[in-house]
């Protein structure tokens, strides 16, 4: 990611203005009486994933980060917008529309996923080796049994499961949580994927195992030149992965990306008030400097995603909100690999925000605004 000129050739996955809206099933009477309750899980998100990239998606539960992650790797069809893998529209390939250069099967192979709960993603009745053989049989049917086993054992050894032959013949319940996660990782890596989506892959693990698992992810990312999309609600974990890999952190709120950029910029100098809130929520190991201060939000509960607030979606909780924020939606701006962007009117010194009246309930003397 050092050369800025060849960024376009570099892009593996490109997400353009995608939205994912869910309409819950309604009974017949309901459908007559009320408007459909559309949940806007993802709304108008654009971003690129380059070769060897690491993107950490951070947000509260229900902010749409998992839906966006699945959309990025083509496991969720967007209701709007497009997802392209090496210039091939994924859903055109699936529907066999237009000139399909890369078949959908190839796309599926190249984009893999590791789930949050490794135990649930492995068949409890099958030995590790059987679970791992299945995808190889499906995608490389010409490979003979010996080669297949050799490849699996080599990978198991690579992720630190030694002796591999011993682990290969265990059942999932005979493995610890960390070991199960490694098997899930091996299963994804067997496909030589270009991008792996790791959905909360370390949050279920014990604290002392998290750094170890993240180090393993980073090591494999370097060895296999795989890009990672890492979903987390934990800013510390996201920062660790993104900073070590030279990647980016993206902050999501109610279906939108509100800030994106290098972890150093986003976390050390957050521009969006919501990023500041998440920053506050992430505890530091410094009890002396840290008195428990009240959260820098006006409401600690997230609004209903069925009816997201108009204008800036954060305005109902934002400690800096002014009247203009209730109807004027801020744009995230450029989304290339380098620049940090924040979707907040406060980043524009000439915006009418600065002339707008404070919202009711927002304190006029906000100490944090004094030096901005």
């Amino acid at each position: 990611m050092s050369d800025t000129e060849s960024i376009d050739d570099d892009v593996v996955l490109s997400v353009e203005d995608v939205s994912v809206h869910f309409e819950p099933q309604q009974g017949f009477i309901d459908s007559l009486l009320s408007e459909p309750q559309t949940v806007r899980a993802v709304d108008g998100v654009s971003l690129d994933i380059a070769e060897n990239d690491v993107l950490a998606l951070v947000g509260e539960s229900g902010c749409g980060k998992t839906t966006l992650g699945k959309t990025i790797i083509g496991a969720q069809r967007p209701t709007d917008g497009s997802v392209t893998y090496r210039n091939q529209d994924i859903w055109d390939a699936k529907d066999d529309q237009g000139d399909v250069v890369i078949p959908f099967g190839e796309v599926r192979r190249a984009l893999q996923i590791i789930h949050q709960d490794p135990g649930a993603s492995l068949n409890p009745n099958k030995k590790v080796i059987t679970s791992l053989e299945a995808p190889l049989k499906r995608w490389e049917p010409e490979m003979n049994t010996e080669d297949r086993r050799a490849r699996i054992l080599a990978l198991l050894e690579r992720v630190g499961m030694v002796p591999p032959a011993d682990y290969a013949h265990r059942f999932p319940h005979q493995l610890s949580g960390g070991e199960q996660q490694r098997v899930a990782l091996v299963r994804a890596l067997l496909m030589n994927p270009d991008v792996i989506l790791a959905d909360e892959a370390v949050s279920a693990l014990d604290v002392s195992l998290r750094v170890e698992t993240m180090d393993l992810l980073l090591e494999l990312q370097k060895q296999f030149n795989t890009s990672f999309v890492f979903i987390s609600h934990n800013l510390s974990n996201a920062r660790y992965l993104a900073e070590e890999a030279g990647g980016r952190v993206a902050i999501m709120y109610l279906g939108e990306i509100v800030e994106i950029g290098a972890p150093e910029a986003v976390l050390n100098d957050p521009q969006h008030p919501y990023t500041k809130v998440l920053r506050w929520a992430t505890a530091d190991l410094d009890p002396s400097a840290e008195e428990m201060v009240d959260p820098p939000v006006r409401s600690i509960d997230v609004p209903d995603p069925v009816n997201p607030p108009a204008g800036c979606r954060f305005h109902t909780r934002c400690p800096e909100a002014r009247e203009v924020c209730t109807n004027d939606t801020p744009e995230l701006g450029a989304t290339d690999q380098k620049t940090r962007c924040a979707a907040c009117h406060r980043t524009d010194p000439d915006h009418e925000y600065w002339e707008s009246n404070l919202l009711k309930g927002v304190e006029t003397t906000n100490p944090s605004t004094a030096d901005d």
Partner: protein
Amino acid sequence: MTNQTTQRRPQQLEDSDVQQARNDTPNAIVAVRNGSVTYDLENRDAMVLDDVSIDLKRGEILGVVGESGSGKSMLANAMMDAVEEPGITTGSVRYYPESDGNPVNVLELSRGELQSVRWEEISMVFQGALSSFNPTMDIRGHFEETLTAHDYDVEAGMKRARQLLSDLHLDPDRILESYAHELSGGMSQRALIALSLILEPTVLLMDEPTAALDLLMQRSILSLLDDIKEKYELSILFITHDLPLVAGLADRLAILYAFEIAEVGPSEEIIGNSHHPYTRALLKAVPTLETPPASMEPIEGTAPNPAHTPAGCHYAPRCPLATDACRTETPPWDDVNPGHRTACFHPEKVPEAIRFDGGENGS
């Protein structure tokens, strides 16, 4: 062990109890002495809490930090004599209702006495509010049922319930009419905290009360707890696996490793001046926003199984400083500073051998 003697009124203490009670810290509200919990397996005993002595002081928040399986929930259960069969609790738990009064021996209470101490004096909040609430009863029903069961005045109690819910940033009208599944995780957890305080307890034991929630909600609840503790004059024991989460809230921290307390002291001391190898390893293993990634490292090895706890110091097999003494004898308490004790044979070597700069002086 004292709790194996026959039933007697808690207020009538035997001489030995009075003697022991005098050794408790003067401002302790709950004093645990030599608390152990054992499960009798087929061929050997499994100790899931091993000779733990700790005080919860009046008006403080004590953070108990340990990894999964370190026995931290057992400690909370033992404090309410709520260890499930066939677990056997030994040692003593003394609860001081008044700061200058006589203690109640929790482990020797009859069923009825225990019933009134729980909820009315010592209350407990668990992780996962959804499983604590009855799915077929609205939240109001839970408050009313609790008040009726303990012969409290329902009308006055519901007034208090509304106040508690507002203190926790909840809308009482909406919450009381709701069923648990209709609330978000953060809302139902806060409703559960309000419910645990409805009978005006003085001690609140919280076992991972925020673990299933988002970081933002966790921290918000913690900052509310800080306010609530002052307002309702509570003493709180906060159990968690998340050291950074509780470090800013707790007055003191106790680090639990493999069923024993490794180190206990004021939070600043534990974070900035730890003298136990495990505490330091834990501090280094936890990702935070401040610590440089290069200085983080995982802890080698795994924690012991309760049926195969190593002899001597439980941390010895993973400890880079372990000597023969560590592997055979139980380490003594070493007073690092007033109120700061570590269970280690060579605490003076620890800061030098296991460097941790992530605390106050992030050099």
